[in-house]
């Protein structure tokens, strides 16, 4: 009976909206009645921002197969532009966020067009270089505070904004991947030469994925800036990009649900090990090395966790019992 509802396309959409509304109201209720205190809210915020970062980087690294190490740079562009719009120019938060996203996407375009001609490790280093150049440039602009950054950013990011951000990011990227554009993007990852022969313009699809990934990194940056009160260029150095990379690799290159699960895991792990930053980084390092040696495809490989699979596991268990 329930399966029939899920089988129906509109029913499925309705069910998804119901589940999302439930999650949203559930957390909102806990925040309102004070079960989730300040500390919990910070973790929830980091969690949502990390999910946006991981899912968007996964589009570039996982689905398109282009190793980018400059994600923190786009996050920085989004953060700075949105703060300039809201704090310095007095625009509403939504305008600031969208402006930040568009600026990050533009940066992604400017950087992507020349660098995406490069392959593999060259591309990785070039994106790393661009990410660092963005940081150095920000350090040298007095208008945005130079190395000291901007302090006293109004706190506008709420659970509602975060939730909307996560849902929009995942929905956009999932729908993109399931469209004909998505199939072209995946074919570029699988075999560039073969897809070129099939008439796919590989550079334009790479740039498309790169720009969309940068757009959502900008969203994460805007949300971050308007929650944590202060931004400075140092926050967005390449270690931040590596952070996101660990999530994507752990979750499985090319699995959105994997990226979400890994982002959640890494966020909670960081929160638990907050007092021991060195140990946290050592664990990250070991995760990377051991994963690459023993399970290079990550937790999920390129599979997705879905209601159907869960249902299968569930009914399988019932049969066994």
């Amino acid at each position: 009976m329930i399966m029939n509802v899920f089988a129906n396309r509109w029913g499925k959409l309705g069910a998804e909206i119901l589940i999302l509304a439930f999650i949203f109201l559930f957390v909102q209720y806990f925040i309102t009645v004070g079960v989730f205190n300040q500390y919990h809210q910070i973790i929830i915020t980091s969690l949502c921002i990390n999910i946006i970062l991981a899912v968007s980087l996964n589009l570039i690294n996982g689905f398109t197969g282009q190793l980018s190490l400059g994600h923190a740079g786009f996050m920085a562009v989004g953060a700075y532009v949105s703060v300039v719009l809201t704090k310095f120019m007095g625009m509403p938060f939504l305008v600031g966020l969208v402006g930040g996203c568009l600026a990050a996407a533009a940066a992604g375009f400017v950087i992507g067009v020349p660098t995406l001609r490069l392959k593999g490790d060259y591309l990785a280093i070039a994106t790393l270089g661009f990410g660092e150049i963005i940081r150095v440039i920000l350090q040298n602009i007095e208008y945005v505070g130079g190395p000291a950054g901007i302090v006293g950013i109004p706190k506008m990011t709420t659970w509602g904004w975060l939730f909307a951000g996560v849902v929009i990011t995942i929905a956009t990227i999932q729908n993109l991947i399931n469209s004909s554009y998505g199939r072209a993007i995946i074919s570029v990852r699988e075999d560039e030469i073969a897809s070129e022969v099939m008439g796919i313009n590989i550079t334009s699809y790479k740039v498309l994925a790169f720009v969309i990934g940068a757009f959502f990194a900008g969203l994460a940056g805007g949300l971050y800036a308007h929650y944590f009160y202060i931004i400075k260029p140092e926050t967005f150095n390449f270690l931040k990009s590596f952070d996101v990379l660990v999530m994507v690799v752990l979750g499985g290159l090319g699995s959105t649900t994997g990226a979400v699960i890994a982002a959640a895991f890494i966020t909670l792990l960081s929160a638990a090990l907050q007092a021991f930053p060195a140990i946290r980084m050592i664990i990250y390092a070991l995760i990377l090395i051991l994963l690459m040696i023993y399970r290079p495809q990550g937790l999920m490989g390129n599979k997705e966790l879905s209601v159907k699979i869960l249902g299968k596991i569930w009914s399988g268990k019932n049969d066994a019992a």
Partner: protein
Amino acid sequence: MLELMQQIVNGLSLGAIYALIALGYTMVYGIIKLINFAHGDVMMVGAYVGFFSVSMLGTNIVVAMIFAMLACALLGVIIEKVAYKPLRRATRIAALITAIGVSLFLEYTTIFFLTPQQRIFPQGTFPVQDYSLAGISVSNKDIFIFISAILLMVILQFIVKNTKTGKAMRAVSEDKDAAVLMGINVDNTISVTFAIGSALAAAAGVMIGVYYNTINPLMGILPGLKAFVAAVLGGIGIIPGAMVGGFILGILETLVSGYGNSLYRDAVAFGILILILLIKPTGIFGKNTGEKV
């Protein structure tokens, strides 16, 4: 004009350091096509070994450098055997991610055991003296770095060109499978390459300690990245290219901080990298090879 000459002379010792680190990158890349991200951190470990050798054992700087080179040669071989060898047949992205993991591991293990604070070489490790030559001032620090770097490069060149091991290294980097058929022990050759590259990095680490006088656990990141740029600039996988690239980068960087804005110094390297990748990705000495289907 005199000032320009002075800046170039200043850049030479920095360039020599970059060149030494770049050699390790280039040798490893030449032989297993891996960007060894952890190379800068091996250099950092070398600097620490040198530091403890000077401050705890009371050796002079040359002995400290030899200790550091031996320790890092061993470290390089261990890294290769534990982390990179199982991935020799894996994708290059997987190997690159592993290298990033090794890099983070070395940095934060050092922070965990030795605290993140920076350490200063003890007073009198290297009594600095300035000489003036035709209006250009040179310190004995710079002369020491320059001469020992050149000496190491000459030794390396000799090993690669004139010994059996060097011949094996060149053969493996040319064609690994053919080298196996010729009876070359590829595993040992790769280990030797890592040992030599890491020893050069360790020497560079001690030199950076002398140059800046301070060391810290994250000191390897930026010089490591810049040396990589130097290797790409000269043509990655080509040994003379790494030397030339290192000197060019060191001099350019000194010129930018001398004449322009020193805050942009770190952007120079990446700017050069992107330019070179766009104009001639194979580097100054590289040959263009077509893509085979």
